[in-house]
């Protein structure tokens, strides 16, 4: 009897242990995912809770008044305008170059050249933002002075590989049959590329550009050495250094004044709001256009 029952017992014991280990790991994995979400919720909630107090009309229309007493109006209009100018110029610089790069790599380049240049873009993408900031500092700022357009250039270097790579990905999704049909009708390669292939990818390019914009809008490191010595007045002139939301947060957080901390939280709330909304919309849009392209195929 017992001799017959023993192996059974042994086997079920072993299975039980394997199942227990499996359950343990599954719980750990679920816990890790919950932990990541919890951190996101905690960070966003603390920014929202502390920033909401200082977030009013004055924040968007007034410039910083560091002597303001509680209740007196103070804001970050100069930083909001400055960020818009700096980021806008960076988009103007990076977007055309990035799209043209992707067209060359995906439509025209021999494979080896494409591989080499794609590797260069990936390596460029991996260079830390602070190193790009120092690069623009020694190239343009040191001895010549800071300016908002120099900050834009630093951000554009950051943005270029992002735009080029996402555009490459959508170009690769365009079915070859479209290109072949156009060429078979006698259209030139450039005509095919510009009026048949490119319009198909417009949605994807907009999505990629929006994600890249969301990414660079929050960057601080490239601005430190290129556009940090700005005045407190609202200015649109890219030839002088302009203040920006990330630097406003960075410098306000260093001070001991709780009033400035409140302003920093409000600026963080504006920045996070813009970035999260922009990237969520872009993602939803990307999922839809990818489905459409995949469906056509």
């Amino acid at each position, binding site marked *: 009897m017992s001799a017959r029952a023993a192996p059974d017992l042994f086997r079920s014991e072993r299975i039980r242990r*394997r*199942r227990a280990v*499996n359950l343990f*790991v599954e719980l*750990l*994995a679920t*816990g*890790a995912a919950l*932990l*990541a*979400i919890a951190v*996101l919720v905690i*960070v966003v909630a603390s*920014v929202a809770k502390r920033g909401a107090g200082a977030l009013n009309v004055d924040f968007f229309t007034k410039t910083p008044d560091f002597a303001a007493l509680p209740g007196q109006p103070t804001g970050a209009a100069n930083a909001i305008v400055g960020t818009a100018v700096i980021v806008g110029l960076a988009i103007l610089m990076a977007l055309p170059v990035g799209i*043209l*790069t992707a*067209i*060359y790599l995906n*439509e*025209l*380049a*021999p494979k080896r050249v*494409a591989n080499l*240049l*794609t590797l*260069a873009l990936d*390596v460029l993408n*991996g*260079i*830390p*933002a*602070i*190193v*790009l900031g*120092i690069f623009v500092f*020694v*190239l343009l700022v*040191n001895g010549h002075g800071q300016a908002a357009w120099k900050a834009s250039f630093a951000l554009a270097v950051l943005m270029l590989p992002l735009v080029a790579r996402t555009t*490459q990905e959508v170009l*690769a999704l365009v079915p070859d049959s479209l290109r*072949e049909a156009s060429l078979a009708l006698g259209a*030139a*390669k*450039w*005509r095919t590329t510009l009026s048949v292939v490119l319009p198909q990818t417009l949605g994807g390019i907009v999505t990629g550009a929006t994600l890249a914009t969301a990414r660079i*809008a*929050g*960057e*601080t*490191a490239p601005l430190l050495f290129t556009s*940090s010595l700005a005045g407190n007045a609202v200015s649109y002139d890219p030839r002088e250094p302009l203040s920006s939301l*990330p630097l406003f947060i*960075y410098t306000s*957080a260093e001070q001991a004044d709780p009033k400035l*901390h409140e302003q920093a939280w409000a600026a*963080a709330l504006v*920045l*996070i709001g813009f970035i999260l909304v922009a990237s*969520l919309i872009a*993602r939803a849009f990307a999922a839809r256009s990818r489905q459409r392209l995949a469906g056509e195929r």
Partner: protein
Amino acid sequence: MAVAPRSATGPAAFKRRGRFRPGDTVLYVITLAAALSGLVLLVLIARELLTAAWPAMDRFGLDFLTTKAWDPNKKLFGAASFIFGTAVTSIGALLLATPISIAIALFLTELAPRGVRGAVGVLVDMLAAIPSVVLGLWGILVLGPFIVNTLAPALHGTLGFLPIFSTKPSVGSNVFAAILILTIMIVPIISSICRELFLGVPQELKDGALALGATRWEVARGVTFPYARAGIAAALILGLGRAVGEAIAVSQVIGNNVAIHWSLFDAGDTLASRIAGQYIGADTKLQINSLVYLAVILLVFSLVVNVLAQIIVRRVAGRHSAA
């Protein structure tokens, strides 16, 4: 990356016999010029940084890497304490982030129901979208006090015999806070790459293991991990590169102290964070040159890390597409 060469197929051969099209040449030249910009920028970055760092490199040589001091008054600059701080923070963050990221990727590919999968994936990606300066702000004003009041006394009390927990923090700015912030930054990066890798594991292999009676964990350990091994290594390398290069959030929470301490509850500094912290204080030429020298160290490291990761990724992609 599925980037096929279009010109190598039929139309290119046709073009050779066809009539001359100036539009094609114009498009080719313009796009080629744009495409070369990435390479040109890389060369320019290397050249400009080396030129600007040269006076400091000439004066301090490789001793720069082993000199602990950063003293503008004595005109003595060295990177040793920053290299130490960079190593401690990035390796610490990688140690914490690796199991968490892989666990998240496993959850997203194997465990989560279809509806939950998309939502959780988006939320984890959102974590990567939070700007470092905002994480740093949160790090100083929320995480720092929490470490001083709750976490550090607990760790010091129970594990205080370990050198890394041997002191009590007096302020919220310390190496430990930097490690936690960096962990938060690199977990979404590593886990999203791992998720793609795990999705690429052929279903037949997993089904085979399941049919033999393996549990989900045994499938992960026996099939998924070995299959994705090289890719996971590349993901970890990229995460390490990101942690090493992060300047803003680290400079906000680490305390900017030129020192080598083993305790994580003391203030320290990293290469990137030192550069960021000096954006106003650098007056003398030699100090600026030394700052650029720090940037050169970071640049060399990031080039090595990225080329290495790309080589691994390309080799894996080549193997899989050949199979």
